């Protein structure tokens, strides 16, 4: 290869790198500004409602990372949000709006619960059974979540039904049906609450680093491992390439022999599988039984915000999940220490999503203040 050609090549590479960096940088800036702006609006609303805004912000931070038990709670929420966030990111990246992660999460957790409750009596009642039992639960959760994700995928592909609406309907249906089954068949005789029996004691993840009954560093490990697998598949394999191109360049994908319909169903299946796995983690690590899904945290919805903040990039889901886990933990802390209703944080998360949806807003603000004007 001649020197000139090499020179051109490396120049092109450098330009490409630069553009990539600029857009990554821009996304990070937009994410940070959107979060700061939303928190600012939250603080103003807190002040306008007659609470102390400074105390609100400082308590928010303390609630997230103030001491070891707060930190454990934050990491627990973050683990769930990273896992569900990756589920959303897989679908959004492929151009499929899977709003049904919450339902797939509920169904996955329920399948895991059924596996544990029905298989436990068949195995020796000791910790030897823990690993096979949890492996079975995880497999069932993957299958159930995947199937519940594939359903709206098929409705979209074969009947043209808009997946935003079908997945939202399926969320309602999942919670209703699971509640009905729990209430009618799995509630122990005479129990007041619609909860299943407790799982055997040996089912659960050991705390290891943190002394929390509902958080294990292994849970965070499962979430990070899932991110790594998804990242590698999407960035380093032909399948991942087809997935992303069928979302953004349908004609190109078709031309290269990819069947976009099949890709949509596959995408939804994978997304649902990850959501189902999150359900298993929730049942095993956090609850230790299963309960009325209408009372569950809405990880599947907050995950949409996590994924969008990360620009649907699997690696970006990690910092975004940590941030939202912190907001969630902080929000619950202010809920019971300051009497500021914790729903406020849900509203702030909504504002972040709104701002992230409108990057033009920040570009315009950047031009107006001549900050970052060099990007134009």
């Amino acid at each position, binding site marked *: 290869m001649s020197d000139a050609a090499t020179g051109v090549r490396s120049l092109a590479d450098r330009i490409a790198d630069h553009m990539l960096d600029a857009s990554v940088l821009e996304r990070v800036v937009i994410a940070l500004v959107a979060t700061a702006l939303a928190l600012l609006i939250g603080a103003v*609303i807190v002040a306008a*409602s*007659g609470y102390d805004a400074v105390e609100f912000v400082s308590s928010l931070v303390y609630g997230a990372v103030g001491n070891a038990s707060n930190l454990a709670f934050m990491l627990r929420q973050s683990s769930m949000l990273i896992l569900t966030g990756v589920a959303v990111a897989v679908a959004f990246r492929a151009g499929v*709006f899977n*709003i049904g992660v919450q339902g797939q999460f509920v169904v996955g957790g329920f399948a895991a619960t059924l596996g544990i409750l029905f298989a436990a009596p068949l195995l020796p009642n000791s910790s030897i059974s823990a690993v096979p039992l949890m492996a079975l639960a995880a497999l069932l959760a993957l299958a159930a979540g995947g199937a519940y994700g594939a359903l709206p995928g098929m*409705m979209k592909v074969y*009947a*043209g*039904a*808009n997946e*935003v*609406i*079908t997945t*939202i*309907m*399926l969320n*309602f*249906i999942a919670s*209703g*049906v699971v*509640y*009905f089954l729990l*209430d*009618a068949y799995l509630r122990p005789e005479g129990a007041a609450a619609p909860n299943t029996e407790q799982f055997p004691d040996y089912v659960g993840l050991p705390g290891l680093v943190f002394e929390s009954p509902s958080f294990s560093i292994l849970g965070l490990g499962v979430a990070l491992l899932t991110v790594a697998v998804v990242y590698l598949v999407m960035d380093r394999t032909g399948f991942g390439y087809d997935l992303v191109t069928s979302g953004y360049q349908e004609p190109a994908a078709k031309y290269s022999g990819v069947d976009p319909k099949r890709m949509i169903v596959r995408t939804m299946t994978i997304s649902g599988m990850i959501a189902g796995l999150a359900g298993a983690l929730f049942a095993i690590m956090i609850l230790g039984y299963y309960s009325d899904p*209408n009372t569950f945290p809405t990880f599947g*919805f907050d995950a*949409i*915000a996590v994924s*969008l903040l990360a620009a649907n990039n699997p690696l970006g889901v990690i910092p975004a999940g940590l941030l939202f886990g912190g907001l969630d933990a902080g929000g619950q802390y202010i809920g019971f220490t300051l009497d500021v*209703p914790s*729903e*406020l*944080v*849900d*509203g*702030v*998360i*909504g*504002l972040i*999503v*709104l701002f*992230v*949806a*409108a990057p*033009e*807003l920040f570009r*315009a603000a950047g031009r107006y203040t001549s900050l970052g004007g060099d990007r134009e």
Partner: protein
Amino acid sequence: MSTARTLVDDRRTLVGVLGALVAVIALLLFVDLPGSDLVTVGALERALQAATPIALAAIGGLYAEKSGVFNIGLEGFMIFGALVGAAVAWLLAGGDGITQAHLWAAFVAVALVSGVLATLFAVLLIRYEANQIVAGLAVWFIGLGFGPFAATVLWGGVSSPSLPNIDAVSVPVLAEIPVLGRLFFDASPLVLLTIVVAVAAWVVLFRTRYGYWVQAAGENPEALDTAGVDVNRVRYATVIFSGVMAGLGGAVLSIGIGSGFTGTGVTMVDGRGWIAIVAYLFGNYNPLGTYGASLLFGAMDMLQIQLQTIGISLPGSITGLFPYVAVLVVLVGVGYTRVPSAVGESYDTEE
């Protein structure tokens, strides 16, 4: 795109929706049930009431989408409407003794507040070209957060105390008509008003110049621009209209026919904004068909009571799912509807 085609589409839609309604009623009548007890005047009355909030939001959403903007935030606007309605009525009366005048004033306040919120939303969508699906979802999340938050600030809990609602109005002579009199002229005026709105929305959309602008903004914005009409102005108007209508639909839930704001779970709106979107898709963007579809979903919502009266007792957790299942059946069965060609695309003039 031609008028002829639209009319054919319209007729097909109306036949489809009416056919579905008749089919449901016929099914209920003949599935070995004491059917005459299932379809009663009382049942129709409840279905009409349940259809009202859905139809209002759906007609608003229909206009926005016809003009090329997918307002997926209807659910969120309904939550805000439900909250603001209850809050204003409560604040105006100073807590107790809410009168009919307070309630009607609250409806006006809901229209104003929803209009302001929808204007902000429209600026984000149209001027700053926000992703319509994501921004619409955000409105829902914001409603889910700030709705119960505001309720807690006002009432100390996520729900309001029990509030009165709009009284039924009895029109002297017309109320005497059998069946129809009881359904429309001795009922909540909101039911009749909504039907009037649906008819007016049909006339405006298909029979006035402004309606053609709305359609053109969604089908062929370039042509509309060439004709000297500001496309984005039309879209601002329809998005704001959709927010106001959804807000009013929410207020109907909390103070129109309901008894206050409920903020637990996904709030009292409980997916009706999403159902509204399906109602206008099922109605193929025809306001009258949309009303019919809303009535179908309203009837599904009220089926539980009917089933109980004929002695079929299903748990509430299952009967509560009928509307959602109906939505899925409709979406899969009707499936493809012809979406206006420029939906989701922002429009920039070439100047």
